[in-house]
């Protein structure tokens, strides 16, 4: 029983980490008024790049850095289309997402099916040896803690700093932000670049820690979960993180319950993580006033200063 509990709790943190990185990036992008649907492709590109670079250099840090840069570069394509050419953000996001999936295949071609030694878990002596809590709280890989820190940091930046205020202003009313002298396009561009880098790091966490191997299609729809999490978490970082942990927990619980041999159809079990996460997030965010307050008013609307 203790083994099973450890599996569930420790696994949840690890499973949610790729989602959290990508979701924190997407949150900033959407707060600046841009809807970037290419997360799945950005994560895949990061996953492949991180894996290849870490394999070649032997350094996980190099892998994560390269993943962040590769996905950021790809997000520039999205930025050029939506900010430069004022393309429809939904269409541009989907197109760049597909491009990202293709790019990941190209980058990982020589490494299809290869494995890598996962980044080491931290070891805090007796703390890490405690039953259940040890492995869950004090024995994860370092990126799990960085992920948690990023939630705190993003919450603080968006709500308590001038930078956060500018990002939100640009997302609410780009015209007003522009009229008081803030460079709307530049702010949005930086947000998109940040979102790309974070999605890349999330993808790299998949291939360098969570599932230490590369295979095409490894991201397996997690990028779409991220987009859903941001919306259903009503653009609030702690809620989005909660959703990610919930999703991770239920998807592990599903596998556990199946192994126990309960007579629940496994197809229903497989759908559970999606159903439960959406229902719970919808319930805690059902207050229409809060949704209205947090929803970036200009989300998805192209902006030109020339009007």
């Amino acid at each position, binding site marked *: 029983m203790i*083994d*099973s509990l*450890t*599996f569930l709790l420790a*696994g949840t943190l690890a*499973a949610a980490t790729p989602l959290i990185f990508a979701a924190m990036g997407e949150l900033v992008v959407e707060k600046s008024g841009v809807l970037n649907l290419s997360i799945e492709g950005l994560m895949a590109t990061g996953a492949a790049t991180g894996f290849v670079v870490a394999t070649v250099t032997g350094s996980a840090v190099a892998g994560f850095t390269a993943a962040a840069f590769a996905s950021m570069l790809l997000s520039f394509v999205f930025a050029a289309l939506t900010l430069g050419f004022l393309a429809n953000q939904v269409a541009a996001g989907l197109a760049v997402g597909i491009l990202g999936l293709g790019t990941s*295949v190209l980058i990982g*071609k020589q490494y*299809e*099916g*290869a*494995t890598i030694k996962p980044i080491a878990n931290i070891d805090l002596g007796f703390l890490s040896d405690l039953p259940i809590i040890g492995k869950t709280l004090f024995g994860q890989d370092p990126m799990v803690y960085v992920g948690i820190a990023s939630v705190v940091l993003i919450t603080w930046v968006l709500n308590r700093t001038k930078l956060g205020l500018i990002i939100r202003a640009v997302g609410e009313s780009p015209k007003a932000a522009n009229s008081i002298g803030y460079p709307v396009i530049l702010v949005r561009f930086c947000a998109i670049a940040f979102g790309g880098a974070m999605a890349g790091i999330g993808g790299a966490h*998949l291939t360098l820690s*969570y*599932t*230490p*191997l590369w*295979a*095409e*299609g*490894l991201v*397996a729809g997690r990028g779409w979960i991220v987009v859903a999490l941001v919306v259903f978490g009503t653009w609030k970082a702690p809620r989005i993180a909660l959703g990610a942990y919930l999703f991770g927990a239920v*998807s*592990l619980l599903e*596998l*556990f319950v*199946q*192994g*126990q*041999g309960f*007579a629940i*159809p*496994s*197809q229903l079990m*497989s759908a559970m993580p999606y159903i439960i996460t959406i229902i719970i997030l919808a319930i805690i965010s059902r207050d229409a006033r809060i949704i209205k307050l947090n929803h970036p008013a200009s989300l998805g609307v192209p902006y030109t200063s020339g009007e």
Partner: protein
Amino acid sequence: MNFMTRKIKVLFGTIVALALLPLSQAFAADVLKIGYIYPSPAGDVGWAHELDRGRLAIEEAFGDKVESMVVENIPEGPDAARIMNQFAAQGAKMIMLGSFGYMNDGLKLAKRYPDIKIIHASGYKLAENMGNFQTRNYESAYLAGMSAGQITKTNTVGMVAAYAIPEVVGIINAFTLGAQSVNPDATMKVVWLNSWFDPSKAQESARSLIAQKSDVIFSIYQDTPSVVTVAEEEGVYVVNTSSDMKKYAPTKLLVSMQISWADHFVEQTQAVLDGTFKGTAFWGGMADNAVSMESWSDDLSAEQLAALEGKVAEISAGKFHPFTGPIVNQDGDVMIKDGETMADGDLLAINWLVKGVETRLPK
């Protein structure tokens, strides 16, 4: 002006050359062009890798009498149909279709081009010029199950499977029967992924099964070493299908249920070259060298290995069939009576699990 004429000449020459190209190809009929379509990249291990080894066997056997055209990673659907037609246009006279879902497009192609011979993986539709091929993985699953039954201490085996299709259900049953033949207390837990491809989920499934006391993991049709690496990491034994994955679990691989298309592919190519090809359904087992056991674990005792090798010989010689009664299902009903053997047709459509599997079939 001079320059212009030269340019036009070059252009004209190119057009003529291009127009003649198909003609020249038609005349070079002494080389058999074979087209191959794989559903996934032919990596180091897995389904497409084994198909590709079949191709290499053909090339080795026939040398410059054959020419290969390979296209990997083609989703089932219009893309596959397009590639098939392209192969036909390029003069392929034999085509290997590497996935179940290519079946209907393949059949259309077979009807349109009676002179193109097609062999198709794991389908069931036949034509005069289209045959299909499958392996009797239940034979190797029974043997792998035996070894799992011998080596397990917790009497619990965990299985990671994609979908509950008859092929998968059949090998789960055979594995269970094999395990129980040497260890009547052995029970099986199954996690259905409900996804053909999600290595992360496969790894988590293996971890959850290990947390629930499984000390042997059966990785069913996972094309990546996802499950195998987790088993090595957690220190439990692992059995995998299709390819040998010894290098991913050097100390914990119990055995690999290797498949091989080499003999069948070479035979079919010979038939095409001889003009005797006829579309047949090939279901190859150990007797046909289509299925074999690779990399038995060093942890099996000499006695256990002898028992396993003895069973290998019996199955290869056709003296033993894993689905020989009495066999009861999960509810205790007798499905195969004492002394009877399950017919191939029933085995291909099997939709019940044997006693000893704890998980129910998703319905």
